[in-house]
């Protein structure tokens, strides 16, 4: 039940390293998409902890991503001239973690006020927080305000994207699949019953937000050092919806499904590129049809090693 997880983590990171060594051989464009996939997996799995497992419908995940991305980018830009090139991986990791920590604080700031809210209210408030973060960033001259932050060094590569993706998946599933972690799902299923058996709903909800936000921040940092440019409008409500869609398609709480959905939804725009004009219309229709016909998500096939629910 428990022993395979750590071994899987190490193996996956090792595999990512190996693939990354050959990355010079790959088509740059497809490599870029693969990195996008890794980043989206982190976003989807981290949001899944909040929305899927704990049942707090958060529509502001892009805000956490923004906090992490801008923080990490600012750090690397400021330090880029001052540090010898051999140390850049350390700086990069440090910047990512700093971004993640700041995003985690943002997660705390969002999680605490939203404790008593349910369903729609929670959704709108988290959306509001995301918008507030965006508006603040749009007015911060130190990070380029509305014109955005340029000149971010390209530190993200295949290895980092997938190593962090694997770490995110490991952390979230390890936590949820423990006895402690059952508390998240208990809070989701029935908060009052959870309280009655000694589970503190406040603690779990806030923890979910903090951990989810942390990894969203890491994803934001990876994103910043991949696209090399950040703009506040890229982290708006629609971006949050994109991430929410991955969690919903994947089946709200089913980690494997969410990962598959993240992969598919990252690749989908590529396939629909021919229908550029109709891409989003089809996407929106898909959402409506999916909710009416199969709201439990597309990928809910039985149980797997990673999902005990």
């Amino acid at each position: 039940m428990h022993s395979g997880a750590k071994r899987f983590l190490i193996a996956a990171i090792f595999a990512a390293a190996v693939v990354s060594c050959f990355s010079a051989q790959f088509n740059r464009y497809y490599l870029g998409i693969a990195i996008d996939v890794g980043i989206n997996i982190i976003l989807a799995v981290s949001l899944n902890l909040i929305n899927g497992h704990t049942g707090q419908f958060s529509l502001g995940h892009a805000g956490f991503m923004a906090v992490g991305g801008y923080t990490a980018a600012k750090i690397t830009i400021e330090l880029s001239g001052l540090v010898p090139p051999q140390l850049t991986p350390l700086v990069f990791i440090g910047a990512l973690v700093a971004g993640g920590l700041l995003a985690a604080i943002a997660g705390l700031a969002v999680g605490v006020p939203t404790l008593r809210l349910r369903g729609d209210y929670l959704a709108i408030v988290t959306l509001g927080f995301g918008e507030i973060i965006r508006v603040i960033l749009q007015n911060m001259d130190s990070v380029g305000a509305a014109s955005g932050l340029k000149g971010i060094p390209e530190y993200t590569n295949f290895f980092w994207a997938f190593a962090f993706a694997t770490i995110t998946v490991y952390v979230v599933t390890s936590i949820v699949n423990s006895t402690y972690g059952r508390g998240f799902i208990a809070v989701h299923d029935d908060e009052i019953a959870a309280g009655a058996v000694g589970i503190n709903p406040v603690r779990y909800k806030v923890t979910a937000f903090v951990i989810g936000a942390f990894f969203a921040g890491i994803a934001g940092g990876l994103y910043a050092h991949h696209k090399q440019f950040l703009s506040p409008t890229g982290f708006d409500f629609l971006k949050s919806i994109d991430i929410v869609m991955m969690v919903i398609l994947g089946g709200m709480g089913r980690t494997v499904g969410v990962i598959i959905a993240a992969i598919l939804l990252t690749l989908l725009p590529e396939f629909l590129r021919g229908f550029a004009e109709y891409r989003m219309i089809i996407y929106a229709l898909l959402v409506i049809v999916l909710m009416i016909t199969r709201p439990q998500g597309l990928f809910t096939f039985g149980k797997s090693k990673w999902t005990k629910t």
Partner: protein
Amino acid sequence: MVYGILRFINFAHGDVFMLGAFAGYFLAPVINKFLPAESYAGGILVLILAMTICALIGIVIEFLAYRPLRSRPKLTVLITAIGVSLFIEYTCQNGHVFGAAPHAFPKLIPYTTWNLDGLVLDSNQIIVIVTTILLLAALRFIVQNTKVGTAMRALAFNEQAAALMGVNINSIISFTFGLGSALAGAGGILFAMNYTSIDPLMGVQIGLKAFVAAVLGGIGNLPGAALGGLIIGLLETFAGGIPGLSNYRDGIAFAILILILLFKPAGLLGKSQVEKV
């Protein structure tokens, strides 16, 4: 109103607002063939027609997208509403429909100004005030003094009991959506008359702020919603005039929402609900 009865945020409401403005945009030249351009009669006719179109759109949306999900968890409906909203927005942005670029809204009524001791008001602004008062009065009359309105209030209170009392749930819900959408359409026209530029995404922010206004006033409480709308509108406008704060305009509504939900979640005029354990 919709939230009071169905308990979910209709994300597409802002988009019906937009569709109302566009309806006015396309209707005005047609009406001008029969009635003199820029006349009150013409303007009123455009308003009424646009409201009717929006009512129908709202009823269709409810029937196709929300009714099948009546018994499902609220989250599913919420996401569907987001999907409907995105669908409308992206379809309208398509070059074959309206296109993403802004359009100039035609003048619906003669433009005159009044100068009261330095305060300049124009006819468009007056019309907004007058129409709003009339529509809200009509709405209050419908909700408080008609059978339909009583049925709506009963539904909002307790759906099962209302059904047991012979209320046709489907009809009343359709009616509520139609009514709400008609008002949204009217809002779109009034907005377009004053801000003259319309585009497919004009309803996004407004739709969200409308919800914030409703929560501020006390969800499900109509006078409260009107009060909330007034307060948010005033705060935003004043903030727009304060240098330094004006850039944060869009965030104000949300900041208000968060504060209200923290300190007085039932809203200004609402009653708090106790959950039965």
